[in-house]
């Protein structure tokens, strides 16, 4: 599903060169649930961004569902992100000025779709995460766990093949974290969604199919 070959990512600012990733080779099969672990600053988010086509590697190749994307235009990349990938972030990234359901609709805005269908799908996704009663609330009126569930609804509303979650439980207490994890497992089991999750929690990582470890931008095995 996702293939990284000889990937290197270097951030260049005025003076400093940061090697965020070096010599990364990995392949994630469709339907896998993979966790990524490693100390802070070791390049986990960078890796996830490359997988999610939010950024391009300095060296090497990224392939998504067999497609080599290095020559893709902004439009094609955007479309791939829109149709195949769902993101969940540690800090939720909900838009404060939009109601819960409008937040969930966002990925569908960038597809050709009628407003009514958009709304129906968003409501269905919210039902899936158990938030049908909070549809017209605003993010600030929800607890952290509820906000992350909204973010998950937003990530799955477009029925992506891949869900990329960057420390999805990092800002939640353990019971809320477990709730979110249960949701991800459910998605992986029932819809067969490929999931890559960054976490600091060995316990949660232990419950995934496979764990990738990074240290200082390099894979550790």
């Amino acid at each position, binding site marked *: 599903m996702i293939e990284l070959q000889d990937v290197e990512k270097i951030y260049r600012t005025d003076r400093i060169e940061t090697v965020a990733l070096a010599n990364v080779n990995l392949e994630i099969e469709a339907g896998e649930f993979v966790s990524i672990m490693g100390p802070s600053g070791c390049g986990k988010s960078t890796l996830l*961004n490359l997988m999610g086509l*939010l*950024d391009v590697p300095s060296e090497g190749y990224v392939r998504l569902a067999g497609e080599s994307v290095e020559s893709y235009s*902004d*439009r094609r990349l*955007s479309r791939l992100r*829109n149709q195949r990938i769902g993101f969940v972030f540690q800090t939720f990234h909900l838009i404060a000025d939009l109601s819960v359901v409008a937040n969930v609709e966002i*990925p569908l*805005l960038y597809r050709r779709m009628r407003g009514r269908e958009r709304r129906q799908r968003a409501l269905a996704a919210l039902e899936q995460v158990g938030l049908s009663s909070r549809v017209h609330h605003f993010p600030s009126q929800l607890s952290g766990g509820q906000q992350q569930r909204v973010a998950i609804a937003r990530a799955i509303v477009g029925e992506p093949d891949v869900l990329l979650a960057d420390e999805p439980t990092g800002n939640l207490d353990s019971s809320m974290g477990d709730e979110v994890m249960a949701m991800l497992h459910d998605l992986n089991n029932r819809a067969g969604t490929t999931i890559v999750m960054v976490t600091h929690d060995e316990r949660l990582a232990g419950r995934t199919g496979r764990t990738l470890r990074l240290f200082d931008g390099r894979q550790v095995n």
Partner: protein
Amino acid sequence: MIRHMLQIVWNRKASNALIILEILVSFLVVFAVVAMAIFNWRNYHRPLGYAWEDVWQINFRIGDREFDAAERHAAANRTLERLLRELETMAPVVRAAAGHYPPYTRSSSSRNWDTSDGRDIFTEIIEATPEFFEVLDIRIVAGRGFEAADAAHPWQPVIVNRTLAADLFGEGEDPIGKTVDLGNMKSTETELRVVGMIDDYRKGGELAVPSNMMFEAVWLEPTRRPLSLLAIRLAPGTPAAFEEELSKRLNALAPEWSFSVRSLAAKRDAYLRLRLAPLLAAAVVAAFLILMVALGLVGVLWQNVTQRTLEVGLRRAKGATRPNIHWQILGEMLMIASLGLVLGTLVVVQVPLMGWLSFLDLSTFGLAFAVSVVVIYCLAAICSLYPSWLAARIQPAEALHYE
């Protein structure tokens, strides 16, 4: 997408209030300037009703050797008569007349009365000898000009312009031969009878508001108060140097009077300069204001975009293309502009509703409104060009990295 943007704009109304206010103020300023420009433009292209080319006016001060008023009037009118006669013997002078209120003059005399059926009539009054029409090439479109025989009538012959004829007798009615309804002043006043109609006589010049005009025929009878002005039409192409010869002749004919000669062309130049200067100044001030508003808008939008970096990053992660982001910022700005315009419209419609600026007719008003709306939308679009370009350039990975 539109509903989505509306929700954002609406929920951000507090932070958009400043932009809305700026849009509202610029709309009002643009509207005022455009309305004045259209109004003046239309006036400028309205027929004047006379031809100023090759016409000179001669102002004079009467030497007062006579103490007795009656004697003074009689002497002045005798002199005037002689001047008119003599002027016409000069080669370049085609016609000479005496009157009041030549073109490009601000002063006027006017009259205001109620007709017997209660209509309020206002008109400017101009007294002139019959030749005045020929000198200024004022075309009689119905009836006739003043004639020598008119002096014998017990009624006062008058010539009216179209708008006064319509006010007095109704739109499309033939005014010729009709008596002016003076209402309750009827018993004390000489009867006024319309003998002719002209298109117009826009004494105030090209930029003047159209007004009702009534000419009263004047003969230089010994008893009447003398007129204050001579006007002459010259053969086309008469050089300015003729003025010297003319002044010499006038001084020789009436040594105790003093004269000043001026061409209507020169008066018109000075008039247009004087009238256009404040309009230009207003336009410059307005343009400056709009520029300030534009810079302000760009600043506020720029700041908005910076504040919303995370949101833009998220949208990009969720599949928005760069053009999607571009259009969203632009679309939101146009919606905000629309809110400002709705408020502006509410303010501006008060003008005709309250009967203010009644000289602005509805079509000028409507056109000015339409033009101002277009100008404001263009302004909003131009001001969002740079901020929306900035927003579209935001790198999603970086945007989502910083919190």
